[in-house]
């Protein structure tokens, strides 16, 4: 394998690993703020218990996100120097603003949020919680701006082969940014909703019926039930936007080889790139035309539009885009049914009395948001190939001239580290949940007891 494909696998592995943790922290920050505000308003200890448990998950996820994020920032230079040389005038300021407005804010106030509870006034601690949530969201904003610009670039001109900004307004508010940003924020909300519901359901199954667990189960289920219809709607808008700017991606998602009318909605097929057709296709007649063009005979662009006269293929590989899109949509509908059924049952019988199969279902779906997010990410990012910046530069033009064995060796090391860390991460969260369900303190540290009860809000110890 050559440097290009190895570098792509390495970057794909890095970003796949990285995106898991921001997906958790973006929304979990706001959920923590919600717990904190509920505690401030009601003084009910259960909200502080919820905060103290989930803030640990937040800290762990944050650390995983930080270390893999640093890796990403170096990979631009070590593996893709062409990217910055060609579009650095645009990508650079966006990345710089991310570091300056988001990274430092998160990092500094996370310290205060975790370890400062007993050193600052309560409102400062609430403010720190808000600033951390705000910082993670700002970070998302800048990264999505850059990513969207790479999909739908505008507001620049090429001079001597280098992109120069002409309008920062157009660069930031590029056509796909609002859809992509909302889609990502909702994806984070759903991921966190299912993680919270899943872990809480697991604790219920272990016989832990604490007030805080009941409350977090309710929060998780209702959050999921509320967000999923919005996400499905948003996904549809995003699809229409993609159809307008990147029709080849939609053609690959739909498995549509020919530009034509009366296009069926393909539910299942095996796309065959050699024969340029689908095998074993099962579809709903006229479905795709109806969804994309709102007319039964609407003409939908096909992949044949993106094959040059000399046979050069300028559309993405079909099968990975086709399948990852179906995985994302499939999980989305599973989320819809389970969360609505869950919300209905909680309203009728209370969070304490959910039927066991439903608790098992929520537990099984704990990390479903991760899979949907990754599948969505692959749909959009593989769907952009062979372009790195649509119409401006291809992925091949950006790759570094480093020897393939060097990339291979680091790739293997990354994969080993990442696999080990994912196992450790899920293992530790489950361990913390089990420990908390047994009523043991979450820390191994011995605390000197002064007076009778543990105060409602104490500071964590660093590394706790």
């Amino acid at each position: 394998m050559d440097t290009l494909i190895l570098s792509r696998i390495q970057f794909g592995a890095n970003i796949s690993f990285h995106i898991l943790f921001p997906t958790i922290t973006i929304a979990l920050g706001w959920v923590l703020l919600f717990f904190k505000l509920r505690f401030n308003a009601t003084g009910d200890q259960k909200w502080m218990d919820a905060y103290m448990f989930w803030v640990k998950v937040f800290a762990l996820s944050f650390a995983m996100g930080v270390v893999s994020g640093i890796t990403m920032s170096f990979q631009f230079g070590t593996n893709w120097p062409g990217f910055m040389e060609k579009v650095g005038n645009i990508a650079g300021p966006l990345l710089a603003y991310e570091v300056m407005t988001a990274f430092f804010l998160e990092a500094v106030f996370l310290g205060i949020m975790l370890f400062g509870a007993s050193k600052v006034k309560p409102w400062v601690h609430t403010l720190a919680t808000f600033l951390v949530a705000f910082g993670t969201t700002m970070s998302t904003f800048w990264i999505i701006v850059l990513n969207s610009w790479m999909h739908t670039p505008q507001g620049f001109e090429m001079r001597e082969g280098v992109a120069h900004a002409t309008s920062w307004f157009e660069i930031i508010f590029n056509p796909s940014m609002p859809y992509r940003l909302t889609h990502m924020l909702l994806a984070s909300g759903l991921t966190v909703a299912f993680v919270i519901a899943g872990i809480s359901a697991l604790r219920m199954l272990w016989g832990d019926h604490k007030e805080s667990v009941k409350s977090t189960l309710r929060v998780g289920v209702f959050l999921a039930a509320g967000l999923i219809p919005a996400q499905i709607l948003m996904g549809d808008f995003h699809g229409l936007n993609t159809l307008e700017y990147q029709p080849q991606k939609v053609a690959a998602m739909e498995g549509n080889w020919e530009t034509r009318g009366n296009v069926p909605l393909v539910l299942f097929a095996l796309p065959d790139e050699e024969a340029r057709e689908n095998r074993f296709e099962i579809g709903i007649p006229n479905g795709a035309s109806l969804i994309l063009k709102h007319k039964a005979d609407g003409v939908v662009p096909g992949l044949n539009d993106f094959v040059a006269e000399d046979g050069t293929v300028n559309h993405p590989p079909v099968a990975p885009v086709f399948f990852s899109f179906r995985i994302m949509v499939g999980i989305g509908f599973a989320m819809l049914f389970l969360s609505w059924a869950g919300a209905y049952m909680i309203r009728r019988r209370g969070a304490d009395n959910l039927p066991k199969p439903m608790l098992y279902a929520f537990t099984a779906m704990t990390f479903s948001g991760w899979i949907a997010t990754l599948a969505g990410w692959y749909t959009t990012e593989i769907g952009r190939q062979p372009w790195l910046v649509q119409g401006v530069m291809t992925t091949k033009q950006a790759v570094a001239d480093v020897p393939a064995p060097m990339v291979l060796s680091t790739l293997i090391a990354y994969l080993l580290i990442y696999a080990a860390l994912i196992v450790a991460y899920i293992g530790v969260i489950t361990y913390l949940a089990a420990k908390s369900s047994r009523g043991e303190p979450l820390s191994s540290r011995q605390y000197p007891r002064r007076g009778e009860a543990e105060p409602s809000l104490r500071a964590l110890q660093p590394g706790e």
Partner: protein
Amino acid sequence: MELFGDPAVWLPFTFAALMGLSILIYVVLDGFDLGVGLLMPLSDEAEKDRLVASIGPFWDANETWLVLAIGLLLVAFPPAHGVILTSLYLPVAIMLFGLILRGVSFEFRAKAPIAQKRFWNGAFFTGSLMASLSQGFMLGMYVMGLQWTWINAGFATLTALFLTVGYSFIGAAWLIHKTDGVLQAKAVGWAKGGIWGLILGIGAISLATPFVSDRLFDKWFSYPAMLYLAPLPILSAALVGYIWWKLRRLPYYDDRYNWTPFAAASALFALSFGGMAYSFYPYVVPEQITIYEAASAPESLFIILLGTLWVLPAILGYTILSYFIFRGKATELRYD
């Protein structure tokens, strides 16, 4: 913009200065917390928790200065960014593995079951060691002009060792400030050992630099440059002497002056860094690419600078606030 003359001149200079500043802040701040990680094996089980507690609220923000430095290199000097990072591909990868290991074991060591704590303590040390060694190696390679020859790699191996010992020195100086009792006395001992690495490291780089190129030799050993530059080595020697003298007396009976070794070490780092910056200016890739050749378009740099003028003071402000909030000894457990 007219006020400052040609933006194609002052903008690259400003960004080189900003980048230098964030590298310096990084080396001092992450230097001490990497150093604390390096000292882990020298401490007993109970002390390990205090070591980690002393850097807990800070390490994450400290590491962010590295992201800012690399970000500024990337945005302000894109071609140099590519050249430097591709030629340092392997040491960069090793540093990243180290930073990953260290960052996560910080969290895992206290959250995982007790039986795994030893493993994560080991990972915390190993990660700190990998990051320190590879940063020192990259520094050595950079000084020698980023050419992979046996001599350069040998020199870089030496700087890797020296920087690692130097980091453990500043880490020990931090612990003198943040701890008390037996651990503080231990930290004084560690600092006494570590200062040798610092002296040898600064000495090696100072001696090697002028011989890398004639340009550098002339820059340092011509009249009147020698005259302006004389304070650098003299002040550095004075600081080393001061640290040595203080370390023999610390800790004082009421814990006075516990901050002096750390302050002096930071000043020493800053002086050495100033010397390096003087040597390499105006090059961003030694002897190959100047900051003016590598700079991004002025309009892009200007838009970043506008934001930086507002954001950087804010960052410095709340960073100082956080050091103020978490002042005092690391063992302190307060329930009021």
